């Protein structure tokens, strides 16, 4: 579903991503972990072209998004993204947050979009908030709405960039539970997270990044019990 080859990204003189090679299969859940500043967000943001790669290739469903003239909007519509700070549209009700993008870019009727929005909201446990404005919601509720908003586009891949890092501790679980059940439903996902227990439980594969490189890729049980590299072991020692 996603294939990344020799991906480089620089901001000015600083090379933030150096020669990233990996792929994500359909239905796979990948957890990306690593110290802050190691390029995890930048990597995710390259996949939906919120950052344009400096060099290398990224294929989404066989389409190379680094080709000139490629339809980036189409590619983005296949990829849902959930941000650390939610970024809900504050001037729209929860329902409109969910239906605006499908109504604008997809060929769906208002009724279809709203029915779908109802289903999604009930699946994240927020049916009663359909007419609320985002500012009246708690952090955990906001993030669940943000997940539902991304799902409303019926993406093939979901990207999560530290979805629980901005939440009060008591709200982390409700959001992780939603992400877990999404993973169980077979959604392809890449999740940047500092929640090691979650990564271990949900991920099919761990990608460990440091200084803009993928230092180690492994199955969770291997990675958490016997990481191969010193850097990964150092990191785990600090966070576990």
């Amino acid at each position, binding site marked *: 579903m996603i294939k990344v080859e020799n991906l480089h990204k620089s901001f000015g003189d600083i090379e933030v991503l150096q020669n990233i090679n990996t792929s994500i299969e359909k239905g796979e859940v990948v957890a990306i972990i690593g110290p802050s500043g190691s390029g995890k967000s930048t990597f995710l943001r390259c996949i939906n072209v919120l950052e344009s790669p400096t060099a290398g290739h990224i294929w989404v469903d066989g389409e190379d998004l680094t080709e000139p003239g490629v339809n980036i909007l189409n590619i983005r519509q296949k990829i849902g993204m959930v*941000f650390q700070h939610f970024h809900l549209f504050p*001037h729209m009700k929860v329902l409109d947050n969910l239906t605006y*993008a499908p109504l*604008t*870019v997809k060929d769906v009727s208002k009724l279809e979009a709203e029915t779908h929005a109802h289903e999604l909201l009930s699946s994240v446990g927020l049916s009663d908030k359909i007419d609320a404005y985002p*500012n009246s919601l708690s952090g955990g509720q906001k993030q669940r709405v943000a997940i539902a908003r991304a799902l409303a586009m019926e993406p093939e891949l979901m990207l999560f960039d530290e979805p629980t890092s901005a939440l009060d501790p008591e709200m982390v679980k409700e959001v992780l539970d939603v992400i877990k059940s999404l993973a169980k439903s077979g959604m392809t996902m890449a999740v940047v997270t500092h929640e090691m227990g979650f990564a271990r439980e949900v991920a099919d594969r761990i990608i460990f990044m440091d200084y803009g490189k993928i230092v180690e890729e492994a199955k969770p049980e291997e990675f958490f019990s016997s990481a191969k590299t010193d850097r990964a072991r150092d990191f785990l020692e600090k966070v576990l």
Partner: protein
Amino acid sequence: MNLDFSQIVPYIPFMLEGIWVTLGFVIIAIVIGFFIGSFIALVKISHIKVLRWIADFYTSVFRGTPLILQLMFVYYAVPQVLGYDISPFLSAILTFGLNSSAYVSEIIRAGIEAVDKGQREAAMALGIPYRPMMIKIILPQAMKNILPALMNEFITLTKESAIVSVINYLDLMRRAQVVGAELYRNFEAYIFVGAIYYVMVMMLTVLGKLLERRLKKSD
């Protein structure tokens, strides 16, 4: 001190008429300024460097020279070059409209840029194209910053409009001068129109406050 307001009484209708003259060209100038200013703001946030540079230069010229000079330039200097005898009215709406567009473009640009960058990214990540993103996501939020500042610009424009008296345009200010000259008494006429300006500006201020309160309500 010998004040005598009774002497200006016959001239009151003449001076009151100045309200409409002033309001008339101020409103036209505001509309011109708003449309041109919005367009320039869009240019400023675009990705075309040359256009952005031109827009910035345009703005800096209007902000970097005295308004009275701009007005006299349009009224006296332009006819010399174009051979077209421009009327005081046209000079006034042109100068104030263009001048205001420079300020308005800055207000709108700053208002748009003050919207959390995450909003744009969230819209982009959903695959929403540029136009609907600007119109439905960014601008409605930018309005909260833009409207109060625009209101201030309108207030400024209303006060500064008195400058048109120098090109002999019969606005409120100019009428006070005329009456003062005729009566050989200036105090009463200036007090009279001064009060009118004050009331107009206060009304705009109250309007702005009401607007601001309504915008806050949606939070």
